[in-house]
């Protein structure tokens, strides 16, 4: 008979296998059929079967191998009943025959090889709509369910579920391949994968409503870190993949200082930062730099490294930041980079010089049409930077109004709270301020 303890142990083993191996198993199952929905259904059936048979029969020595074998049998049953397919899946050869006949514990995932990289490139294929790539990765590589993804993206769960189903149908119907692009195609294909992983990380900063199942922000950040480092390691020598790995690792190193009320980056207690992650991030950045021309992610990682270096030197190297933001602006122009550069100018020169840089940015966009100016003026980091620079320039009443406007536009509650306090003329942090720049949403 099944004891409650055995049931608990079986559920924990199944949950652990699900978290650790979901993407690897889906990738293996789908690689031969191109059918992600079928792979996911087969895998979830295998998990259900595990919850039934593990409590009585015991947790197998190789839970992932067991799940793969059971899921593959499910998948094959579905084919047999549904299709006129005559080809046998490629991985049969790799597994040496019918897995139902093989000893389950002999299925060695490492020997079969990791197909997650192929899966990442499938999810971020140019023929897949850019807006669904990150959600698709979250679901099929990381195993997030549609409801959690929908919550993270602030869209209705049914709409997100439909879009995910449509994307998976498209992969199967148009036969989008599960392959890593060759050297010629890699430059055109890699950026979308990096963007989607970066999108996964950026989501952890978004103002997602709480969803059942734990702290999504921490989960998302951790998973994005894992994906970025895995991608870089699997590709070995792609500078931008290492750049992204470095960027996320260095940013995550400061995660312990992010709990509780908002504290601007320059005022954070560096003893809270994770020294091990900083060292790892710096190592990733060195591997990126070894690869030649610096791209956008490598620049952003270098900016993170400068901030993290304050833990060692006790001061922020503003001239270095100015050089890096100027270079970033040249490689990958964006409103965010321009605003950050203005903030840095506010620190390296004077608050007035920073304000001039912001005005110049607004005028430049205004020249591109009325929509350009309003895009700048509704950009929250612009508003927050402007408020900070006005305060430092000794213009308190203008600063108060600007802080209020920045607070209105802030999506994160802790940032909003901080900016309202600043609007009321308070310094929420008792230690006062250093010579840091504006409170960018970068934390």
């Amino acid at each position: 008979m099944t004891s409650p303890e055995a049931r608990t142990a079986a559920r924990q083993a199944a949950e652990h296998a699900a978290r650790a191996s979901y993407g690897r198993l889906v990738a293996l199952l789908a690689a031969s059929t191109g059918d992600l929905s079928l792979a996911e259904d087969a895998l979830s059936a295998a998990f259900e079967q595990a919850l039934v048979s593990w409590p009585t029969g015991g947790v197998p020595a190789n839970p992932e191998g067991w799940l793969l074998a059971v899921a593959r049998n499910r998948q094959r049953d579905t084919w047999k009943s549904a299709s006129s397919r005559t080809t046998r899946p490629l991985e049969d050869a790799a597994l040496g025959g019918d897995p139902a006949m093989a000893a389950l514990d002999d299925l060695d995932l490492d020997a079969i090889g990791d197909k997650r990289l192929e899966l990442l490139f499938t999810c971020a294929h140019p023929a897949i709509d850019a807006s669904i790539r990150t959600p698709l990765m979250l679901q099929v590589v990381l195993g997030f369910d549609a409801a959690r993804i929908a919550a993270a993206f602030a869209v209705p769960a049914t709409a997100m579920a439909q879009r995910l189903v449509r994307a998976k149908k498209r992969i199967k119907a148009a036969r989008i391949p599960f392959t890593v692009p060759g050297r010629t195609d890699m430059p055109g294909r890699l950026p979308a994968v990096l963007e989607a992983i970066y999108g996964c990380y950026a989501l952890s900063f978004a103002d997602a409503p709480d969803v059942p199942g734990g702290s999504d922000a921490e989960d998302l950040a951790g998973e994005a870190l894992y994906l970025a480092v895995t991608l870089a390691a699997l590709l070995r020598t792609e500078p931008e993949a290492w750049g992204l790995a470095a960027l996320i690792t260095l940013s995550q190193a400061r995660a312990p200082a992010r709990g509780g009320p908002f504290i601007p980056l320059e005022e954070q207690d560096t003893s809270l930062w994770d020294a091990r992650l900083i060292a790892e991030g710096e190592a990733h950045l060195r591997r990126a730099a070894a690869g030649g021309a610096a791209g956008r992610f490598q620049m952003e990682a270098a900016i993170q490294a400068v901030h993290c270096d304050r833990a060692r030197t006790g001061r922020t190297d503003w001239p270095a930041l100015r050089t890096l933001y100027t270079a970033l602006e040249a490689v990958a122009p964006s409103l965010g980079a321009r605003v950050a550069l203005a903030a840095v100018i506010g620190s390296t020169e004077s608050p007035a010089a920073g304000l001039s840089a912001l005005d110049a940015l607004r005028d430049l966009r205004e020249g591109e049409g009325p929509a350009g100016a309003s895009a700048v003026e509704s950009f929250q980091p612009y508003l927050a930077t402007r408020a900070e620079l006005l305060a430092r320039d000794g213009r308190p009443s203008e600063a108060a109004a600007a802080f209020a406007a920045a607070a209105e536009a802030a999506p994160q509650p802790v940032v909003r709270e901080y900016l309202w306090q600043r609007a009321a003329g308070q310094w929420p942090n008792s230690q006062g301020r250093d010579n840091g720049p504006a409170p960018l949403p970068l934390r």
Partner: protein
Amino acid sequence: MRYTLLLHYPEMDAGSLGEEALAAGQRAFSSYAAALHQANVLISAEVLQPSSSTTTLTKSDGALRVQDGPFADTKEQLGGTFVIDVADLDAAIEWAGKAPSVDWGAVEVRPGATYTVGGAWRPNA
């Protein structure tokens, strides 16, 4: 897996195009078809006459209406089709990118669903 490449482009007549450009276009399509054939992926290809020659049939209230002109009166028209049989979408995209008309208009890559052999339908794949 069969894909049909649908070539859409603005229509130009021989007069406005000029002899030389027309000849160059024909040469480009010849070598494209030859390359597809050489790679053993070409099922069929057809370049269509201008939409000014096309006739559109519609049925409304049970009556068949025959009309001068294309179904959709747009600047870009369907100008030709290539049916190819390749491994996957990436291979189809690679061939589509080499279609000469990609310099003047959109090339649509549409996977086939079924096709006929001797009058009987066969599933694509």
